[in-house]
């Protein structure tokens, strides 16, 4: 008290920092700049979702690949911001991974789709009926010539032949097939386009994704399905033959937004339903005008990720560069699609490498049981220390509570998140934090037994125990650091807590407790020491 001491100063700083960062947890109405330094809870406590994305840069040049991950992160962040998630965390992990954490998100399906969605928007001209017929015939011929490359179709073909041979009749369960080949036996002509019966959709989808099938399609054309009906799985789907030339693409787009058709609208596709209205850039608008002018009477397909959303008839040249994407959207689907269209395409494709979703209920349970366990452990340990070391125990209990506060404060200060393993780390620290004090106290007891006065016993005890405390804690710190290096998410939280706990408990024992001893307990020439 009489003269300035570094120890006193460090204790004051220690207490102030702890109080500063803990205040937002306890006091509700703090100013904004202060309250924002609040301890963040991890996903496992708060509920939410976490996706680890793998960015596939194999298709890109080396130069492009370097920026691709960062570019993707930017796009994902923009999408999530527009989706509206509080405190999302999007980080680059290693060379080509992205970790996305979305606390509090419960509609994880929508969130995952939003992140993954590529939304490659293309406008393509639909083939005229006679052109389409020719394309399908060519596909049939090509497949028939190479039937062994398509095991699924080959099996089907055998089956058909068996049925036909057995009954000697040409009765066909598929009604009126579009052609004679095995491929066109799967589809039938519809009102405007071809149709695929619902139980054949799977095989058609597999074919469309097959690169061998794509080679069977004559150059300049492509086959696309329309959008699946999400309400029932037993809906037939239309199949379109499109010219593969891209008339306009997402790059020509300037803005997409969700609108609602008025209930009085005569167009059944938008009446009372959400749709997406898009505006094109100046150049895009020019192209659009040109395309519509050149193709009056034909149909223009709006294709998103290879799926035809709508294929309206071009009745006249359209200027101004506005169009609509309709297609049985729910309002949240329309919303996500608009976000994805606005934020642009991902530079490189991403695939989720792992996903975890934690319900809010489980998180709340974990906090409750974690804190119960912590408080019970803390109380027992404090009680023991008090009984065993009396005044010394009281002082170390005091330091112990401070230590727990210090861990929480430091987690806040470093912007780290408190996870369930983190809580476990704090609870374990409670058990281990007393160790430094125990070492010192045991030492002091020995010195007292050897007949030293309280003051010199205390000095000697601290002097000797300090080396031990250092050696013992540095090794634990090594484990914590390795754990941090290797771990992700919750485990890192645990490592950080453990490391902070070790540092905090060393400080508490060697500086904090000692000062209290020196200042208040061993004053003057007291003959006894309650320890």
């Amino acid at each position: 008290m009489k003269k300035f001491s570094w120890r006193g100063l460090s204790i004051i700083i220690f207490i102030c920092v702890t109080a500063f960062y803990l205040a937002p947890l306890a006091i509700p109405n703090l100013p904004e700049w202060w309250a924002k330094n609040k301890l963040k809870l991890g996903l496992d406590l708060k509920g939410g979702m976490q996706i680890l994305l793998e960015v596939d840069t194999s298709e890109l040049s080396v130069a492009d690949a370097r920026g691709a991950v960062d570019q993707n992160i930017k796009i994902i962040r923009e999408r999530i911001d527009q989706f509206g998630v509080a405190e999302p965390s999007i980080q680059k992990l290693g060379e080509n991974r992205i970790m996305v954490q979305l606390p509090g998100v419960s509609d994880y399906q929508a969130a995952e789709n939003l992140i993954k969605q590529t939304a490659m928007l293309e406008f393509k001209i639909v083939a005229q009926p006679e052109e389409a017929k020719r394309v399908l015939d060519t596909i049939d011929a090509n497949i028939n010539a190479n039937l062994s490359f398509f095991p699924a179709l080959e099996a089907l073909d055998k089956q058909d032949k068996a049925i036909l041979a057995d009954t000697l009749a040409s009765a066909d369960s598929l009604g009126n097939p579009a052609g004679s080949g095995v491929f066109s036996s799967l589809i039938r002509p519809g009102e405007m386009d071809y149709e695929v019966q619902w139980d054949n959709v799977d095989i058609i989808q597999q074919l469309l994704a097959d690169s061998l099938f794509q080679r069977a399609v004559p150059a300049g054309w492509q086959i696309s399905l329309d959008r699946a009906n999400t309400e029932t799985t037993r809906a037939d789907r239309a199949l379109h033959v499109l010219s593969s030339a891209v008339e306009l693409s997402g790059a020509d787009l300037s803005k997409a937004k969700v609108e609602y058709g008025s209930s009085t609208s005569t167009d059944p596709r938008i009446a009372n339903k959400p749709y997406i209205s898009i505006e094109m850039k100046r150049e895009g608008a020019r192209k659009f005008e040109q395309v519509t002018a050149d193709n009056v009477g034909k149909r223009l397909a709006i294709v998103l990720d290879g799926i035809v959303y709508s294929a309206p008839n071009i009745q006249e040249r359209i200027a101004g560069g506005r169009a609509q994407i309709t297609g049985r959207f729910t309002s949240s689907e329309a919303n996500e699609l608009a976000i994805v269209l606005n934020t642009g395409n991902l530079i490189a494709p991403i695939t989720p490498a792992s996903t975890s979703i934690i319900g809010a209920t489980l998180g709340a349970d974990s906090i409750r049981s974690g804190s119960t366990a912590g408080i019970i452990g803390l109380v027992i340990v404090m009680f023991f220390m008090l009984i065993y070391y009396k005044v010394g125990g009281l002082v170390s209990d005091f330091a112990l509570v401070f230590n727990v506060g210090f861990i929480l404060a430091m987690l806040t200060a470093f912007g780290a998140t408190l996870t369930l393993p983190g809580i476990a780390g704090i609870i374990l620290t409670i058990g281990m934090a007393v160790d430094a004090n125990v070492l010192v106290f045991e030492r002091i007891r020995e010195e007292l037994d050897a007949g030293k006065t309280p003051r010199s016993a205390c000095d000697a005890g601290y002097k000797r125990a300090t080396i031990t405390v250092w050696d013992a804690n540095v090794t634990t710190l090594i484990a914590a650091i390795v754990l941090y290096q290797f771990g992700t998410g919750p485990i890192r939280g645990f490592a950080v807590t453990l490391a902070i706990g070790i540092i905090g408990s060393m400080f508490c024992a060697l500086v904090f407790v000692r000062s209290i001893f020196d200042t208040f307990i061993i004053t003057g020439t007291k003959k006894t020491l309650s320890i």
Partner: protein
Amino acid sequence: MRLMQNTNINFVGMRKGAYVISGILILAAIIGLAVRGLNWSIDFTSGVAAKVDLKALDTSVAPIQIDELRTVLKNNGFPEAEIQHVGIVDDATFMIKIKSAESKDEVSGDTKTAIIEIIKTNFPKHIEGRDMNRDVIEEIYEVGPKVGGELRTDAILAVVISLILMIIYIWFRFELTFGLMAIAALAHDVIIIIGVFALTGKEITIQIIAALLTIVGYSINDTIVIFDRVREDLKIRRKDPVGQVFNYSINETLSRTVITSGTTLITALALYFFGGTVLHDFALAISLGVIIGTYSSIFVASNLVVDLTHATHKEKQAMQHLTKRK
């Protein structure tokens, strides 16, 4: 109040017995590992794990039996699903695990969605009135094979790296034999605990790896406190035989060892009993670790140093080296 004060237990004398006990434990652990192998969790193998709460709000609805759920999943294309009750049976909370086969290189991204759909369509009464995403599904993990394999390598690497770093630190602060034997004692602890997990078939999750590393950190702490005392006592009792000095030191630090182990064990047990199901195995591993770690610090690490320095005739040299340094 004082515990274990001025004890004079001949720990060094008991070392043969301790070696036998440790030997049996390690042998059991190795046999367990060889015969039953480790049950790596989804985190490390890849697949889908889902925890679902299927307790109906309407109490008149009969609770789902585990076999019922198994049959439903089996009929819907997941015959390999492992299903377990979480917590008490009345809670009707289930853990569904579908590990992807090693041969499959991609876990289907739709497995997660498929499971949710199956539950939705088959148990409508049990989820009625509750939000599917918030209340029914407590958690879902889906791990791709690439990440899973990497994690396993990383986990093993983390344990090995931390052991090596510790040897170096102890070598620097004490002496090489001390470092090596401290690590031998640690390996002893880790092997026995892993053995317990192998024998009981409990899952090795990421949290268990964290628990193992905590034990490593904790057990070395105990060992170092004893070594530190040995280092000090060797300077004071230069004339006594090394074994006796070790015995002194272990006895002198015994009350500290018991108290610290006790407080740590208390908190670990508090976690075990009150920390909820998620931390159950984690707390179990820590509790076991504290007990085994304390045992090995007292009976294994120091005794090994005594025997090894004696056997290699480096006793003098090692002790001189040790007392020279600070």
